[in-house]
């Protein structure tokens, strides 16, 4: 019974030599996976929602997705929309720091950096036909249209059909059936 377990030292050696490898790429990779998935959600949302004709300046105007504030997607969103269309409109990405810069977008994603400004941003957007999406907690209940939330390690979304209607957007029932339906709640002051 004094015998060394076969292969034990090799196993340990392998393990520690693996550790020596550079692992710094890991974090970036991890985050990007989550945002790659969320980027694909954005693309999907666009397919399930109908914008009024006045949302576009011209019949062949592109479909513009704006990212407001800090951009968590980095290249993932660019890669996702590359070569894709929304109802045969080309997709264009735009990044901005204020709501005014992105006012003529059809979809705006609010980064976490905008948490304190949600109310102001929504006011500035008025009733324009913009699909607002965010991962800020409770965004849809604060008057936004869709927010992402984590559940059991998976990406889920809340959707506020009332807010979409106010902006003249028509949401396909299939999208409604997959999300958690919420209403605009009064903000506590």
């Amino acid at each position: 019974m004094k015998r060394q377990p076969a292969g034990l030292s090799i196993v340990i050696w392998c393990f520690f030599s693996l550790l020596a490898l550079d692992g710094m790429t890991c974090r970036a990779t991890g985050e990007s996976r989550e945002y790659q998935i969320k980027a694909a959600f954005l693309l999907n949302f666009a397919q399930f929602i109908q914008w009024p004709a006045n949302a576009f300046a011209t019949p062949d105007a592109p479909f513009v997705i704006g990212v407001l504030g800090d951009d968590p997607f980095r290249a993932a969103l660019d890669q996702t929309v590359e070569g894709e269309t929304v109802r045969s409109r080309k997709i264009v990405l735009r990044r901005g720091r204020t709501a005014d810069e992105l006012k003529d977008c059809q979809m705006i994603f609010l980064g976490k950096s905008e948490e304190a400004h949600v109310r102001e941003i929504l006011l500035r957007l008025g009733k324009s036909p913009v699909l607002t999406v965010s991962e800020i907690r409770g965004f849809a209940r604060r008057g936004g249209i869709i927010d992402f939330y984590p559940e059991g390690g998976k990406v889920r979304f809340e959707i506020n059909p009332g807010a979409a209607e106010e902006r003249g957007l028509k949401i396909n029932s299939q999208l409604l059936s997959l999300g958690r339906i919420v209403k605009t709640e009064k903000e506590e002051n």
Partner: protein
Amino acid sequence: MFSVAAPPCRGCGMNSVMIISSAGVRAAGRGFIVLMACLTAGIATNLRAQTTATNLQPPTAQNEGPATYKKMSLQELMALDVTSVSKSAEPYADAPAAIQVITGDDIRRSGATLIPEALRLADNLEVAQLTSSSWDISARGFNSSVGDKLLVLIDGRSVYTPLFSGVIWNMQDYLLEDIDRIEVISGPGGTLWGANAVNGVINILSKNAKDTQGLYLEAGGGTQTQDFTGVRYGGQIASNVYYRVYGKYFDEGAEVFSDGKSADDPWNRAQGGFRVDADRSPQDQLTLQGDLYVGDTDTVPGGEGTQQAEGTTSGANMLGRWTHTFSDTSDLSLQVYYDYTHIAAPFQADAALDEPEGLLRDDLDTYDVDFQDRFELGERNRIIWGLGYRFTHDVVSNAPVVGFTPGTLDQNLFSGFAQDQIKLIDKVYLTLGSKLEHNDFTGFEYEPSGRLQWNMTDHQMVWAAISRAVRTPSRYDRDLEEPAPPAAPFLGSNSTFESETVLAYELGYRAQVSQKVSGSLSLFYNDYDHLRSLDYTPKTLVPFYFQNDLEGNTYGFEFSANYQVLDWWRLHGGYDLLKEDIHVRPGGVDLDDALNETADPQQQVFLRSSMDLPYRLELDISSRWVDRVHNSDGPTPGEVPAYADMDVRIGWRATSHLEFSIVGENLLHNYHAEAGFPGAAQEEIARAVYGKVSFLW
């Protein structure tokens, strides 16, 4: 006629049953274990199944990246797991424990058709198939047929039987397609989960009904799994309210005796159930679920050349859970369940005892309520606390050769726990907590633990833990009599049998070494006291009775690693080492010479390869090497030789709705033994092949 030197406990199963003499009675014990399908009792439980959910699963072997995701439907995107990467989403994502997570996709690709087969995917478990319908499963040793140191929960419902504190695996099933993941924690989990989580905890979690919408059908058959069929339909009742209903049936063929002849132990089982998940509001989630099942299990309790007998199992359960979320770090949940199990296990006649054959019947009702709350206290403290109560009503109808006294037993279990995760400095956390329980056999029990965790970097963690856990007495320890009263001269009940205890020291390291490589290493040293032994009555010798005269230690480690070689090819490797030194305490007695509690391989090696091939083909190869197992027949040592075996699955996703697969199990041998004392009753596991079609709409 009986001497102490004569083999008292004949080993392969419920040792006491085998006391009396040789093959016949021994087999009765085997029958007991094999057939005793059953109960669910358990322990204060878990909502923790949800909160400690700890996802460490590596990325699936599918191609990843924007190009892949953008082609997916919303439903497919919603099924993707992101916790492996975004740990902030899941507060327990880097739990300081030896945990492995088997995902639903891992199960599908393994070709497993039953839960025990799926558990072979966890490197930190010992899984040994004993007969066609029985398995011995344990973590870190003590894998005897009355293995009693592992707690198993299905969606928060404890499924071990208070008869012997073990799990009757042929009673635990689910439509595997609807299992979200199985979390396997080796090492004590008593602080959160309570008594019985001595050497490990298995959490089997089914998918949220929202994730099982639509129609799913599967059917197939083959050499051992002769035919099987499963169906599930998921739909929506109202906005934010989803349901599914499912059914499953299979016929499993017989295994063989060591000479290759049929062991005449085929079995079949039908199960159906439902789950409803409702988001009443963004903060409130409700789950209601239930299952109903019935199984017929044939065995040859006397071993080769004796009569076949039939055992039956059935059961039903219903569980409701309400979770209210205050914030990312604060929620509370309330869970209530009822569980009923019935078993009828045949025992053969025993000539030595002059007792005829007959069935042992057991009917168990379990009522359980569990409350848990989680909140943040200041900047540095994360508190979880909870309360639980369980009532069990157990009615045994004795077989002539074996019985329980009293026949009817009501038991109450009260429990409470509190745990504080304290942020000591940046990236260093200390978790302190304890469970306090009160059971009717031994009164108060406490199970404290301390865990230290250092997140060295975003992708490396070191942890260390010291925990105490107990295994409270089961009815087997205290109430078993052989033969059944009024005869009962051999094995007598012992109302002073106390709890077994362990003090466990653990050290672990986990790392996501790079985008492609991840691994973990967990070391342990366990110090056990008051383990079960078999004693005799002075002068008269009989009755024998169970006592707490064993003690000792075990140590070893578990290593596992994943390597995503290419986008379409993933490798997994695992290695376990286990050393055991269990002996009779000074001045104590064990008629089984300390051989009867441990039937474990010293080493196990696992290697798996998962490939996504062109034309939507999948090729999965899984191989294992399991060291020889030392078991015993009373004080007589026995051995099951080391073996290597391999499973292969080839799957073809013909369309996004239709999948075909062929699975070969245990391909390297015609048949091989994994457990059981060598002899007329030992069974071996035959090579098996089956085909399967599944349809998802």
